[in-house]
């Protein structure tokens, strides 16, 4: 398996570290911090931290190019075949996207 880093070019996967599924979004913590509606948020956090789609097929996932440019990447990969269909920089996704949507 080789990953085509958008910054460094195609590299062997030993240079990369895997985080996992890029789909789950960290739930907002507003009510949990305020001590209201906590049970719903606890449920959302349980789901976020512990439950997985465990996709069999195309999955978008976070990889970290620690052996190269040290960028976080979003890789579209097939878990049945290890075939990679796209690699993009992760900047602006994940926590950054949650913050941005909270501001807007």
């Amino acid at each position, binding site marked *: 398996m080789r990953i085509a880093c958008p910054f460094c070019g195609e590299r062997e996967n030993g240079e990369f570290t895997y985080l996992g599924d890029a789909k789950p979004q960290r739930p907002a913590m507003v009510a949990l911090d305020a001590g209201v509606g906590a049970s719903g948020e606890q449920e959302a956090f349980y789901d976020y931290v512990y439950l*997985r789609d*465990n996709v069999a097929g195309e999955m978008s996932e976070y990889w970290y190019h620690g052996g190269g440019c040290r960028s976080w990447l979003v890789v579209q990969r097939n878990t049945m*075949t290890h075939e990679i269909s796209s690699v993009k920089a992760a900047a602006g996704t994940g926590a950054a996207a949650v913050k941005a949507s909270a501001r807007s």
Partner: protein
Amino acid sequence: MKYSIFSLARAALSGHRNWSRTWRDPQPKSHYDVVIIGGGGHGLATAYFLAHTYGIRNVAVLEKGWIGSGNAGRNTTIIRSNYMLPGNTGFYELSMKLWERMEQDLNYNTMVSQRGIVNLYHSDAQRDAFARRGNVMRINGIDAELLDQAQIRRMMPFLNFENARFPIQGGLWQPRGGTARHDAVVWGYAHAADKYGVDIIQNCEVTGFTHDQNGKITGVETSRGKIGAGKVGMAVAGSSSRVAAMAGLRLPIESHVLQAFVSEAIKPLLPGVVTFGAGHFYVSQSDKGGLVFGGDLDGYNSYAQRGNMPVMEDVCEGGMALMPMIGRVRLLRQWGGIMDMSMDGTPIIDRTPVDGLYLNAGWCYGGFKATPGSGLVFAQLLATDTPHEEAKRFRLDRFQRGAMIDEKGQGAQPNLH
């Protein structure tokens, strides 16, 4: 057929042409009391204990390929019960006790060999951690002995004791640990379960579940037609999420690939199982002479049953650090299996929120040694709806309750367990 020295002699006299089938190849019936999905070691052991211990003999085991074609035939065959946390300690010892009488129970030679397992330690801190683990084991009546360097030297003089970074200081020794012949375990349980009338149905892939109007499971849809069931047990580690999804469940599990390796056969070298404490490398020697070894997961989600080069390199580096003389031994084969990695590194054996559906999953890469124990406790759950005393902590909802059993202390990052 009952196997004995006499059956062997009889068969030998007729040129071994008159052995009868070890298990039947039945057509699926329309209804069973219990249907078990997954004809691996765990599924077949469950069927055996249902029939043998709990008297439920109208049982089918459905296997999409051939029995033992998944992880049961892909592991490194190690058996041990050197666990520290409550929940694990007793369960794996229950399993170890069942290994010790398996061949008599099943009337099948599963080549259980209690040649011992030693976990090496390479620092003072690691020695303290292993001493603590050994003490927990001994308090629970499990054999454990903390060996110093001189004792390890007598046992395995060829190890690299003077490694500059990872000198071997000693090891935690479990004499009752060892290896078993993995395929024979599958065949042995199939042989014994079949004698009680359990139907082992191969090439039968489950494609869905059937429900009544209250949502209770009434059976399964398969590639060989609908099969009704009073209860359905899942023992499909590696694919648990995919099968559970057919029943609308999401599990705290990721599927990851783990590779294993075997070298060409060499003369007897390793007296038992050895694990390297400064990396992740474990090795034993098969009776044919090959070194059977493995290491870490590849680290990414996969259902592909094959891994990649970086982990092969990492595993072989571990081997070279531990026993440099194996550098000239050629690798014979390498393969991959799909692990059900749970969020705390510990299995799940429980009822599910879907009435009539029972789950045996999340074995991470410790499933083989658990085979007999898993079968017994899952059979009790299926038969009586109450968890076995030694499996009552393996609950599906433990993540929600904060009652994780995290032996390695890695949290909900399954590729690190």
